[in-house]
């Protein structure tokens, strides 16, 4: 199975920048546009490739930093992403605190309206205060209790007495290309958000793909006979599962690389994807297979002996 490869469809190298992609698309589009007699399916595929790459290479609001914030006011949060999301600069949803607004539970009063209360000592529970002495008779609403005659004594459990509560806001953020585990992502202030926000990346493996340091690896488990016979192996790449041929001289323990198939770098080009081949030796082989294996071993030992004696001679 061949994975979706927009570069191939657009006829450009994986190194191509946005400008080149745009140019290639325009050229091809002129060629394949249905209005101009092109095949519709072909054009749609073209369009899809173009849009796909545009999205992927579009600039992210997030900036990559190597250091934790140094000063000023900010929010430091954690961003859980999968290795695949990070490598491809996917769009993820995060929840961040929004600006403070009056607490809806206590209406900004800061106290629990259904909590304990005591009589307001200012107006002695009357809710209003009279001015005495002169001819004028004035009653004013008690400024302490606001006319209720009672003082709420329990703090509001929602805003904890602040009267304000920070809501939550969901942000859809495109991960910047080139971010790696351990990096800090910085979201500068924008409309509706006055604060600097920093995210510390927490990268989780996705399937067989995982980061080791700053490199992306794909793990392949191959039974020993397949490996010995040089059969092709199924590899999970960023584009999906692919069957690849390992080179003849390839030895277990070393790494195989798929050039330009790894995570994106900041400039829009891609690193290599490293494939780690792990060989398994099943402990309980069927007896028939075991017999064959013993046979195989005998042949090999004999070969070695012959070779050794041959040497001596």
């Amino acid at each position, binding site marked *: 199975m061949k994975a979706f490869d927009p570069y191939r469809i657009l006829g450009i190298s994986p190194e191509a920048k946005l400008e080149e992609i745009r140019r290639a698309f325009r050229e091809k589009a002129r060629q394949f546009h249905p209005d101009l007699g092109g095949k519709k399916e072909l054009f749609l595929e073209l369009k899809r490739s173009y849009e796909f790459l545009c999205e992927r290479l579009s600039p992210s609001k997030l900036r990559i930093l*190597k*250091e*934790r*914030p*140094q*000063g*000023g*006011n*900010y*929010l*430091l*949060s*954690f961003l859980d992403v999968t290795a695949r999301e990070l490598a491809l600069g996917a769009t993820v949803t995060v*929840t961040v*605190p929004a600006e403070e607004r009056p607490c809806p539970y206590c209406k900004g009063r800061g106290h629990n309206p259904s909590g304990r*209360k*005591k*009589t*307001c*000592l*200012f107006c*002695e*529970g*009357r809710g209003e205060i*009279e001015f*005495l*002495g002169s*001819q004028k*008779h004035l009653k004013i609403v008690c400024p*302490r209790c606001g006319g209720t005659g009672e003082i709420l004594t*329990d*703090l*509001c*459990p*929602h805003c*904890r*007495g602040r009267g304000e509560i*920070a809501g*939550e806001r969901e942000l859809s953020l495109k991960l910047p290309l080139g971010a790696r585990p*351990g990096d800090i992502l910085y979201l500068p202030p924008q409309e509706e958000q006055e*604060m600097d926000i*920093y995210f*510390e990346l927490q990268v989780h493996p996705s399937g067989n793909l995982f980061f*080791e*340091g700053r*490199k992306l*690896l794909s793990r392949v488990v191959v039974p020993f006979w397949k490996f010995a016979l040089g059969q092709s192996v199924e590899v999970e790449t960023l584009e999906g599962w692919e069957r690849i041929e390992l080179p003849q001289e390839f030895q277990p*323990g*070393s*790494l195989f*690389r798929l050039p330009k198939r790894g995570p994106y770098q900041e400039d829009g080009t891609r690193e*290599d994807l*490293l494939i*780690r081949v792990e060989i398994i030796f099943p402990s309980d082989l069927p007896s028939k297979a075991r017999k064959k294996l013993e046979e195989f071993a005998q042949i090999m030992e004999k070969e070695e002996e012959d070779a050794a004696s041959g040497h001596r001679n």
Partner: protein
Amino acid sequence: MGFEEDVLKDFITEAKENLERLDEEFVELEQHPEDRELLSSIFRTIHTIKGTAGFFGFKTLEAIAHFAEDILSKLRDGLVVADEETIDMLLKAVDYIKAIIAALEETGKEPVDETYLDFLVDLRNFAEKVAKKAEGGGAPPKEKAEEAPAQESKAEEQKPSEEPPSEEKPEEAQAVAESQKDQEEPKAEEKAAPSEEGKAKAESKPEAPKPALASPKKKEDKGVPHVHLTETHVRVDVKLLDQLMNLAGELVLSRNRLVQIASRISDAELQNATQNLSLVTTELQEKIMKTRMQPIGNVFNKFPRIVRDLARSTGKKVNLRIEGADTELDRSIIDAIKDPLTHLVRNSIDHGIEEPDIRVQMGKPPVGTLVLRAYHEGGQVVIEIEDDGRGIDVEKVKQKAIEKGLITPAEAEKMSDREALALIFKPGFSTAQKVTNISGRGVGMDVVKTNVEKLGGSIDIQTVLGAGTTVRLKIPLTLAIIPALVVTCEGQRYAIPQVSLRELVGLSPETRKNIHQIGDSEFFRLRGEMVPIIRLSKILGIEAQPRENESLVILNSGAMDFGLVVDEIWDSEEIVVKPLGKHFKDISIFAGATIMGDGKMALILDVVGISRKIGLKVEDVDKAKEETAAKTVGEDEQQFILLFNVSPEEQFAIPLALVARLDKIKAEKLEFVGGKEIVQYRGRSMPIIRLENYLPIQPLPEQEEYHLLVFAEGEREVAFLVSRIVDSIQTHVKLDERLYQIEGVLGSAIVKDRTTLFLDVYKIIEMHDPYFFVKIVPQEERPYRVLLAEDSPFFRQMIANYLAAAGYEVETAVDGLDAWEKLQKEPFDVLVTDIEMPNMTGIELAKKIRADERLANLPIMALTSLASDEDRRRGLEAGIDEYQVKLERAKVLEALADLLNRKYARAA
């Protein structure tokens, strides 16, 4: 590496300082080779470097420090004596350490140079030699020396590969190495080997460095590199800054004096000169203060890492929000709050914020939020550590305090939440063992509090169980110059830091009425709150002259407010705080001294110290509160009454609380319709009562405008038409019932020098319209018999009247005892009683009734002038069934009917 840069910077500056000192110490050591203390100090310095180097993974540095430490430990333990050779070697080690530090500062990496490795070998051999000397070639030190080289060789082998020390796993290193070039492969394998096989290879390893030994001498000459530590900033000892600050303070004081003298002499030139000096001094003082100011962000920025690590190790998710990072504070204060803050942040994450799944169960977002906030407030900096975690369970805190023997169960019962939370700060509240369920706060919280208070700050906790906790620290901006209020006591001046000041009250004969003596303590009733007060002269132990006009300074000590009575209040002034000598250390009521403008000294009062001196116990304050409560109940007879005239000659009074509204109308608005006088009022017709129609009094004269006293019963309204409202006053009503035995008049009293008739509003309205009040008497063959116990004749008569009007048969008693006696003689269906009465209170009466077999089921309703929850609770405990406010006639009647229905329906 980037993350550690901040820490690395700290490490480097610290190391640089320490190394400078080391040089001096070594020189000293040569003179006193057996000075243990000196050796210990050197040992510690080297040990610190070793530890930090290990933390950062600087292998060469760690190894050099390790062997130097090895040698030093032998010296320190007195196993060998520091000879010239040893000290030489150690000095060389220090030089190498310096060189590495310099390289670290420049590049952030350890230098890659063989000379270091060569020296390392020399040093190791020397260390071995010293160890042998120490033990006479004994086994244990040798083993130690064997182990170390393994470590060293590992370090050595990593160097040539030019890999910066990193946190990468060896596995990864291997992966990268392999992916680079085939030829690098064997190297990478070899590299990985020692770390994996570790000790197995260790034995053969010491061989490896040996070849290097061949040419040590040669290399040694160029070995000690010339080190030049570059400085980007001039680091100034804080002590020096302190001295500068002190001197600036002195300068301010001298300036103040000079200005005073200059103003006396009034010489224009001198005036000019002093003015100039004054300006420069102020500026100088400000600038010096500025050198000490640092943004609090410097401390806050340590927390992202701490929070991250803690969150990771506890499996919690935490957002950290920093607000007000550029708020500036004196450097010494910043240093001093670092630890308390760290402690509080740890607590918040450890014990405050819950695990994500628990948070979701509680309906909170899975990610907790920790806010560090700093802002200025009235010359102080407030730092808040706020989390949205589980909060502190006050009850559990109390329980814990009881277990620990800090308080008695009785005390716990009386404690307010705030007082209970303050227990957390008590030494011994929490020991090392974790107090898991109480959020565990308290581990060392007493230390936090002490540290904050040392800075002249205060700490306060606000918590809502299940919703989170906010710890608020209030810290003075600077310790050296503070605004203070100058007060006097017996001719001496004292300064009170203004941060503790709440308000000032002048004590005139009028305001003195608010002072209450309870037990040995005095309290001032400030807007309904009882504030304990104490005389400054008493604290100081001065014989005080009685004075007419004193002042009361209301202060806040963090935990509570209290009042300090002083003779006079002067001015508020910027004062320079001078510490007191150590002889005064134990006098807790003084925070320091200052010199005033005239050159004389004034002592600075320590508000927290004084509050402790007062030694107010929870019980005292509680007692005070109870007495306040009792006072309000006892004030039954202190009633707001409304005085008015119908004709100018006669004065009438009614309880103000009965009046729904006061209003004025024009005479032409009055209508006479269908035999009734009415007025259009708020879109409705309201009947008017002219009092002269019901009472034998002078008629209302013709006026252009009249006053209306509007009474309401549900939807209905009725108004008295009167000519003038005289006043409304709060007064004791001493009602004379005998003089006027007229329907509709409760009695007479002298109010404002005039005989005043107290009107029975209910009776008069009933005379006007017998159906105005809805009768809520329960259906029975005979009317219920009510016993009314009320000591105030005014209320007694009024209540009796409205009860009778409602259809009850009412018998009255003048106090609890009288009621008790009447209950013995006759049967009653219900008792309606006042609470505060002479001879026997309502509560006592109720208890007595409930204890009596025959009367145990008698329904009891209590009436007070106002019913607080507390009263209600006390009443219920005594066996009172209902609680109502006297003047709320409708409610009283409704509740009484209800009570009777309930009681007798059940009995039947």
